[in-house]
């Protein structure tokens, strides 16, 4: 049993390590207005940026506030910008008023059962990802430090210059 387990682990890791960028898992959730948010539909428009956040996470809110000025630029370039709320059911009623009051234009996605967090293996809050149009995770970033937004913006610009890959 132990040998089989070790082999499964090896094959998984080996297969995963074969590529530099990781294939993005599919997802199908709803935003705060009840609209479906499906990865394939988003990628038909353009690359996807998403940041995992929660109402209790000060750093997550700082990151999303810091990226706010770049929203219009990337929206005009067809980049989808998502803010994935990890708040549990008890806090869900607070999410929409909070996002609106911060004047966020991101698509705010509700994920109270942590489906997205498990799919993307998020280990720390906040964590952000950029998914290219060929459905690869081309950028991953854990945590937020003042100035990290510049790196995220530069990566998105680079991706767009490549034509969304």
């Amino acid at each position, binding site marked *: 049993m132990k040998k089989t387990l070790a082999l499964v682990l090896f094959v998984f890791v080996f297969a995963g390590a074969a590529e530099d960028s990781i294939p993005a898992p599919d997802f199908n959730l709803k935003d705060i207005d009840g609209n479906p948010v499906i990865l394939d539909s988003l990628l038909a428009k353009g690359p996807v940026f998403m940041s995992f956040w929660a109402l*209790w996470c000060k750093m997550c809110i700082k990151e999303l506030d810091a990226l706010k000025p770049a929203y219009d630029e990337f929206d005009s370039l067809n980049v989808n910008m998502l803010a994935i709320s990890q708040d549990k059911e008890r806090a869900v*009623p607070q999410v929409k008023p909070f996002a*609106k009051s911060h004047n966020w234009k991101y698509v705010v996605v509700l994920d109270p059962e942590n489906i997205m967090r498990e799919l993307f293996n998020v280990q*720390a809050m906040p964590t952000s990802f950029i998914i290219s149009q060929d459905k690869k995770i081309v950028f991953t970033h854990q945590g937020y430090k003042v100035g990290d937004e510049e790196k995220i913006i530069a990566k998105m610009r680079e991706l767009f210059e490549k034509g969304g890959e």
Partner: protein
Amino acid sequence: MMVVKRILFFSVLTSCVLSAIDLRINGANTGGFWVFTDTALQYKEHFEDKLKLNGTYGDLSLRTVFFTWFPSLPASLVESLTYVDYTIAYRKTPVNIQYGRFYTTFGRGLCLNQYLDEDFRVDNSLSGIKTEIEIYKSKFTMLIGKPRNIFFEENKYKIKNDLTDQIGGVNLDVGLIPKTALGGRYVRINTRNDLDPSAFTELYGGNLGASLGPFEAYGEYAMQKGCYPVYGGRLSGKGYLTTASFSIPRLGIVGQYMDFDSLGFPYGATYRYNEPPNPIKAGIGVTRGVDEKGYGGTITFTPIDILSGEASHNRLFTHDKNAGVYETVGKLIGHPNDRMEILAQTEYIIRDKIEAIVLSGQTVSYKKQEVKPMLELTYDLGSFYVEASFEMGRYTVEALALKSTYMDQDVSIAVGKPEFMVLTLKYGWRDRTPYWLIDKITREKSWPLVELSWDISNRHNLRILAGAMRGGVICTGGVCRFEVPFKGIRLTMTSLF
């Protein structure tokens, strides 16, 4: 037979790997090693590692979690915890079938709420089978499984529930009418303490929600029918919650009202398979659905780009108002210019008779008032930034004829370079410890802390921490998480792949 099984297994595995165009793999690992002292000043060690591997092949997926925790104490005193969880899922619209370990919440959690919260180290799962069907903008869920509730308290992982319990349930969420949400659910729970197989407990519930422009309203009702565990007698409970909100750009308002009477399940246990929400932001409950009534309101606003804020007042108490929690929070965040952020915040919390201490051999409930102002300044210097904060807490505790006041203070400074490293230095101290509260609030009078968070790459982070923490939600090194009181050295490595 064994050989045939192995050949079959490796054939499937090989075919998956060879047709790697359809095979998608990702994973993550978090490992930690701690050396710390407990309240008796004994040195202890703690090793934990959680490896997650997800594989997707077409419409099939396999999610595995390998978890290991080894404390240093002998197994007779504290048992280690090791498990391998797996979930096999088939997802193809309109069907989603999961076999193995899964999480689920029906409605807002009045009837069933088995959830994972890794930031707060809560892992309440079900092991069994769950089927979801989505048609006509509606979702129907059926499940059956055995619950496992894992908590992390006093630096120990504990499985808190009876692993022989069994839960079955159905849930229907209807979204046929635009801008409305209608739902109904049924949950049946059998426990070892049921008097006989027919003395199970049932929970029924329903919800209705609607939105119109910036307004949203939601109401949920639930009812519990069953038997009191062990000694019998009919158990009957009910509860409801209502929320209303108003959201426009730069302004959000939320109001909540709830009333729960004998809705917490299992009755009398320290763990729950349902979890009725409450309005207290500090995460404090009174009886968690057994005898609770509460209300609250929050306003968040950004009147101008350089200023945002929040004001909140929430109350939760027993029906006779003998015990309760009262909370008021105010927060202002200013950005005088692109490089500077100033955060000023005050919390005022009263906990009345919801916790107890032992005085002269008697267990006595007490009242605690907390006033916690905080000021934080962040300045971006271009290639690096500096963050300085000061927070304090003034606590007044009353029990019987005793009344004492003490103060906690914390100063911290963090220097960080984006995408590379953050160094945090923090020092906390307490002016005095009332003698009769020593067992409750520890003998510690200072909490020095040094933490280094190093982004080895975008996908790998190493965190080294040395010193002491009071516990609670802590944001250092660019991430926020919940910490238990701690004194020692800790190394944590997080990787995504």
